[in-house]
């Protein structure tokens, strides 16, 4: 039996590469969930908005890449803050299901807006990553995925450091662990909510720009959000390390099934993984097991 180990290695690297992006988007999701307890189904659409903002500034307005990227990320941050203020804040204290449905409606609004402004066709983002293939041993990795992975890792590290040491990050973690206590310690909880949505939208925007430049840009990009949903459920909704491990795991599973079984099995495999996890550990690999009290 001459199993092609290099190929498996190559496929796994590609899987880890896209897994890094899942982890990044999962991080944005977990941030929002930890601080505000909102399951944000519109995460894929927030990625998409970031990518389209980048397209608007870099391709339509012709700004230099770095400026366009900063503008896109800031624009997404503003969008995140607006979403929080206009849609999420009025729903404070409502049933989680209602807030969840708000984000479902939001994703529909965002998709419609994008189609209205940019049309439903696929668009290409300007290339900004080096295009020489990267060789690791005999395995070849697509440069976009490789640099995308590097960028995602760097950003994840940056976000983690920020939330470890920055004052606002500490406030966020305090709010996440006990809202009432955070209030009584003088933390402005509504501002923390707004801050979280802003930061999460920015992180999502960067993930969106990378995802958009690896494949292409279209209003159906939000489907990416469904895989992100699997990632965070597998890892545990409120666990940052869970999002990272879950992201890499889902990336690997998708890449393996995509190569060895065929593209149509990808979604089947991810969702089977989801069902498996829900059956065995409903709160995810690293999530908090909440105990219901009466």
């Amino acid at each position: 039996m001459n199993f092609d180990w290099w190929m498996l290695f190559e496929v796994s690297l590609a899987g880890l590469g896209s897994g890094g992006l899942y982890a990044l988007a999962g991080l944005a999701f977990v941030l929002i969930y930890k601080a505000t307890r909102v399951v944000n189904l519109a995460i894929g659409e927030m990625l998409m908005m970031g990518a389209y903002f980048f397209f608007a500034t870099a391709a339509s307005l012709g700004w230099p890449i770095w400026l366009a990227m900063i503008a896109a990320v800031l624009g997404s941050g503003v969008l995140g803050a607006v979403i929080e203020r206009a849609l999420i804040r009025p729903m404070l204290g409502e049933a989680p299901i209602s807030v969840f449905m708000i984000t479902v409606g939001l994703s529909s609004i965002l998709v419609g807006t994008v189609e209205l402004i940019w049309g439903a066709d696929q668009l290409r983002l300007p290339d900004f990553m080096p295009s020489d293939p990267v060789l690791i041993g005999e395995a070849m990795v697509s440069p976009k995925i490789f640099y995308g992975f590097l960028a995602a890792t760097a950003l994840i590290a940056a976000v983690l450091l920020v939330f470890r040491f920055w004052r606002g990050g500490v406030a966020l973690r305090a709010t996440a662990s006990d809202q009432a206590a955070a209030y009584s310690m003088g933390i402005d909880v509504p501002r923390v909510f707004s801050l979280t949505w802003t930061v999460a939208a920015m992180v999502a925007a960067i993930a969106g720009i990378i995802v958009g430049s690896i494949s292409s840009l279209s209003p159906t990009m939000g489907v990416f959000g469904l895989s992100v949903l699997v990632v965070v459920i597998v890892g545990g909704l409120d666990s940052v390390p869970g999002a990272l491990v879950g992201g890499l795991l889902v990336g690997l599973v998708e890449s393996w099934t995509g190569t060895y079984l065929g593209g149509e099995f990808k979604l089947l495999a991810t969702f089977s993984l989801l069902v498996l996890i829900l059956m065995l550990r409903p709160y995810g690999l690293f999530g908090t097991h909440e105990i219901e009290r009466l």
Partner: protein
Amino acid sequence: MRIGSAKETYSRDEALFDSRTQRVWLGVLALALLLFPFVANQYWLYLACLVAINVASATGLNILTGYTGQVSLGQAAFMGVGAYAVAVLEKQLGTPVLLNLAAAGGTAMLFGLVVGIPSLRVKGLYLAIATIAASFILHFVFANWTRVTGGTAGLSLPPAKIFGIVLDTEFRLYWLIMPITLLMLAGAANLFRTRIGRAFVAIRDRDISAEVLGIPLLRYKLLSFGLSSFYAGVAGGLWAYFFRSVTPESFPLLMSIFFLAAIIVGGMGSILGGILGAVFMTLVPEVLKLMVGWLPNASEAMVFLAPVRTIVFGALIVGFLIFEPHGLAEIWRRVRRFFHLWPFRT
């Protein structure tokens, strides 16, 4: 004007329609539904059939989500199961229409029971996500079990035939679809006057208390899933007879979101809400199309129709949740209350 309604017996108190005004208006509505096919043109008949199918399915989801509190995003997939069941039976066995529809409901019910099993361990949003997973897995089966489902090309089926009459026009289909929908609505409305329906409501309000009260959670949650998917299956079967072509793409996740949106907009936990919501959400896109048609440069504006529909769809969900969480049914109740004492108090 109505001052009060004194009820002297328990059966009067439990009655679905307790005042004469209500029964009179119900009669008017029945007459309108009876005469509708004779005055409406083909387009309106088409809409009426579509609305009726959606009402049936939304009512099923309302049993599960509105009354039992188990959020499901798999309703469209269960409709798909029903539609495929009808298509396969019709093509391979040629069994009678009503039997096919019952079988469609039954098959969807079986799938619903399987999907409902996680509902004992996972709750709320986790359950919603589990049903998303189920709907993707079902979509995969539809697309890849080529021998039975015809793969991505799907199945097309001959027009339904009942008592020797070929139901090939909207006018004739109306007489199949509308009575079945009405029957299912009556069934759902009566369900919540029985022990089972009350148990559902108890589970929705507080599942642990319900279990303490002696309601076996697993059995009733599964029952709710089963009933809801039975409704979806029958609706899917009607859908198959109506469009006469079933493909895996006919029942996307968006359609499940549509049904959830319909019961939110209409009002969860109210039969009337399910009806109003499904009617409203089905007609809004058509009204938008009409409005675009009135614009001066209509043919150019048509390009924007699809995105505007998507935005309006999302905005309706968001708007109702923020401003009118109890939905159209609550607006309806408010209007009715206004007329109770009209014209003496406003």
